[in-house]
């Protein structure tokens, strides 16, 4: 009864959860705000897109992708065989167990008239599929511990998913093992299935036989194993048991487990460990079912969908409801497998600049939280924008994403959205005011650090600029100065003035001038300088320093 009720409760939670998760696919928005699309309108667009795809030649591409990408996952195999083994073992093993074992009444019995969970090949296969899942989980754990980046991005959601699967698998194997050695289970099998009558024949011979060949345990009972009794037991076994029971050794994982439990068989049977494990096993499964929409498991719905939708072809170039729907759906398709972050071409920077949102997987999950309306501090927002700015949009994550997520589209849309909200990348660094009264700026640098020390920290030293004799060659060579209508007003300080101000120790003035952020880094000044002053390199150093000063958010 508990089984039935919890099952229906889990189904209900799952369905409600799926509804709650799917609805945002038509309301979450990544991209610049435009006169909006309502949820209904976006739903309409989505249905129209589906119908249009189904009744076009693109349906063949989608069907191909269903086999190639969703079922066989060839795209993962090509890029990372170990990852494929991991994922395919978990996926195939679990699906097979679901159909063969969990849905045995609905599937196995319908397909195979001779189906019995205790006969071969089903007994063997159940163990095989369970082992596949365990191997897959083992690789998953190993990968997440071995890779520095995966280690960094592994979250509670990943651990919960792996832990829940481990509980399901281990409880399953232990349950089978406990049943093998349980006298109670043996007794009820005899009573309920064999149709033999204990009164007429007694139970010793069959027990002796099963103890000898079927791994059964009868603690406290002294069962003789004389040839005669064994012969008798064999006859009984053939008559009553053999037709629906293979040797438990075929359960090649559960059987060894039963051998480990064997010495404690009496105690385990007295507490009915088989019953306890059965509860653990099915409750874990039902918890998984109920949590499916709210955990990483939701990717079993969203990821195939993302692969199939993207196989139908790229979305329209312009900002449409289809694009918004796709992006929102793709946020759920991410399994946080970390492929993007492991291969990210700016990921190594993470070792130098402490901003987790440099990593694509982290940025994506932040965007998901943002579109869900989760509150973020301005500091967090700035970090997310900065992560997006350091990202070079090199397209590698999009090419490699096993879930087929068009990350590039999401990055570009998010960038446009942030720009619209006033979070343009440049806004953070470029000062909005410059104090023209330079007399007060002398010898000053924001805070109380000495200018030369601060400069040394960004690899600029006094001798780098002290050679300047103010000939203005740098300023005359500068194409930016040349292109400006009113250089002093647009740039605040000209290159030669910058060098002069540095010599005078006017830290605030050089750091707050727009010159450093307007430098095109063309190195014409430096190349032409008769004194060998490394002007452009000094500007790089000053930008580094300004960045450090602006970077007042606390690193994560």
């Amino acid at each position, binding site marked *: 009864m508990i089984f039935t009720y919890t099952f229906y409760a889990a189904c209900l939670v799952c369905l409600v959860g799926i509804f709650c998760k799917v609805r945002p696919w038509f309301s979450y928005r990544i991209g610049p705000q435009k006169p909006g699309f309502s949820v209904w309108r976006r739903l309409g667009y989505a249905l129209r897109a589906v119908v249009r795809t189904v009744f076009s030649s693109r349906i063949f591409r989608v069907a191909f992708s269903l086999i190639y990408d969703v079922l066989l996952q060839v795209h993962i195999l090509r890029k990372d065989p170990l990852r494929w083994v991991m994922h395919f073992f978990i996926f195939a093993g679990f699906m097979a167990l679901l159909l063969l074992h969990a849905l045995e009444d609905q599937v196995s019995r319908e397909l195979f008239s001779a189906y019995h969970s205790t006969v071969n090949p089903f007994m063997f296969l159940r163990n095989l599929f369970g082992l596949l899942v365990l191997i897959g989980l083992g690789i998953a754990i190993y990968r997440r511990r071995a890779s520095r980046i995966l280690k960094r991005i592994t979250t509670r959601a990943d651990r919960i998913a792996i832990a829940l699967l481990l509980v399901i698998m281990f409880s399953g194997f232990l349950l089978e093992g406990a049943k093998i050695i349980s006298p109670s289970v043996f007794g009820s099998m005899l009573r309920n299935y064999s149709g033999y009558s204990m009164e007429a024949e007694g139970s010793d011979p069959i027990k002796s036989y099963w103890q000898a060949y079927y791994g059964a345990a009868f603690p406290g009972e002294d069962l003789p194993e004389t040839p005669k009794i064994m012969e008798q037991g064999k006859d009984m076994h053939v008559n009553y048991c053999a037709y629906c029971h293979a040797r438990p050794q075929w359960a090649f994982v559960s059987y060894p487990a039963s051998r480990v439990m064997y010495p404690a068989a009496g105690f385990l049977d007295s507490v009915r460990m088989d019953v306890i494990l059965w509860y653990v096993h099915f409750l874990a499964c039902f918890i998984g079912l109920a949590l499916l929409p709210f955990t990483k498991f939701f990717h079993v719905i969203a990821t195939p969908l993302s692969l199939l939708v993207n196989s139908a072809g790229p979305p329209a170039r312009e900002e449409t409801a289809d694009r918004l729907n796709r992006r929102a759906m793709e946020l759920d398709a991410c399994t946080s497998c970390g492929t993007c972050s492991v291969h990210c*071409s700016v990921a190594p920077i993470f070792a130098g600049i402490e901003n987790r949102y440099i990593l694509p997987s982290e940025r994506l999950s932040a965007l998901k939280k943002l579109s869900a309306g989760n509150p973020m501090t301005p500091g967090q927002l700035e970090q997310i924008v900065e992560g997006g700015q350091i990202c070079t949009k090199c397209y590698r994550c999009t090419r490699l994403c096993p879930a087929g997520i068009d990350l590039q589209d999401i990055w570009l849309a998010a960038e446009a959205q942030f720009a619209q909200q006033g979070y343009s990348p440049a806004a953070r660094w470029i000062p909005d005011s410059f104090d023209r009264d330079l007399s007060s700026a002398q010898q000053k640098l924001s805070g109380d650090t000495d200018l030369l020390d601060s400069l040394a920290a960004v690899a600029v030293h006094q001798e780098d600029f002290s050679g300047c004799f103010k000939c203005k060659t740098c300023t005359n060579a500068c194409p930016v100065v040349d292109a400006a209508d009113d250089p002093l007003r647009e740039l605040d300080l000209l290159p030669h003035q910058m060098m002069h101000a540095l010599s005078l120790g006017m830290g605030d003035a050089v750091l707050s001038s727009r010159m450093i952020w307007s430098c095109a*880094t063309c190195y014409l000044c430096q190349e032409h300088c008769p004194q060998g002053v490394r002007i452009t390199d000094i500007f790089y150093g000053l930008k580094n320093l300004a960045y450090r000063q602006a970077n007042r958010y606390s690193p994560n």
Partner: protein
Amino acid sequence: MTLAFFPGCKIPYFCFHYGTSTKAVLKSLGVDFVEPEFNCCGYSVRNFDLKAFLLQSARNFAIAEQGGMDIVTPCKCCFGTMAHARHILDENHGLRAEINQMLAAENRKYTGVSRVRHLLSVLAEDVGAAQISAHVRRSYHGMKVAAHYGCHALRPSSVVQFDNPFSPTIFESLIRVTGAECVDWEKRLECCGQPLAESSPELSRRLAERKISSALDSGADLICSACTYCQNKFAAVPETAIPNILYPQLLGLSMGLSGRSLGLERTSVTREKLERFIAA
């Protein structure tokens, strides 16, 4: 010798045809190259953090060193960035040790054995103009090209050692191999404006426009660049501007390579226009 091809971050999505055309040209000229998985050269953080920038470049060198290869890149910004990083790492042993400590976390090490080279240097120095012209089957006639040098390859010359910073010749000599003529133009060695696209979009646009009008004034039929960033900048200015083309496209067409691998449909120069100069 085998080279490690470094496409840089802007090719795969924003300038795909530069990658395909470069590889097509290198292949038909018999230049061996492999494509390891590199990371960004460090350009994207050079403004913000010296060490992060050095780490990025050093990691790329470490990858190339493992295969005992030099790096070849078609992007002048990637080239300049990595050449600069190498210069700093070779001069400043403290920084080098620090960077190597960071690399040690993934069992990599920068030793400074591998160099970074720009595509044009490989073509001019390794393959050589004579060898290239042997592959040119369909010369251009009467086509005037403005060679755009690209700042980060040229300067600072003491660091990048690409060509004479005041009167370079390498690009023109490679363009002439195709039969095209080169024009002398005022802003030949100046910036395309791309580095300011984010921080000062207005200045960035002005630099690009001045550059393009300078090329127009010189009577050029098109601008030829050999840098992903410069090309993307030129491609971003309105259609009224002078057509622009990437060097491997210009060379590839004269070598008779397929238009598909050259990606001519993705530039502002129509294939017909180029063919007119070949037919003449």
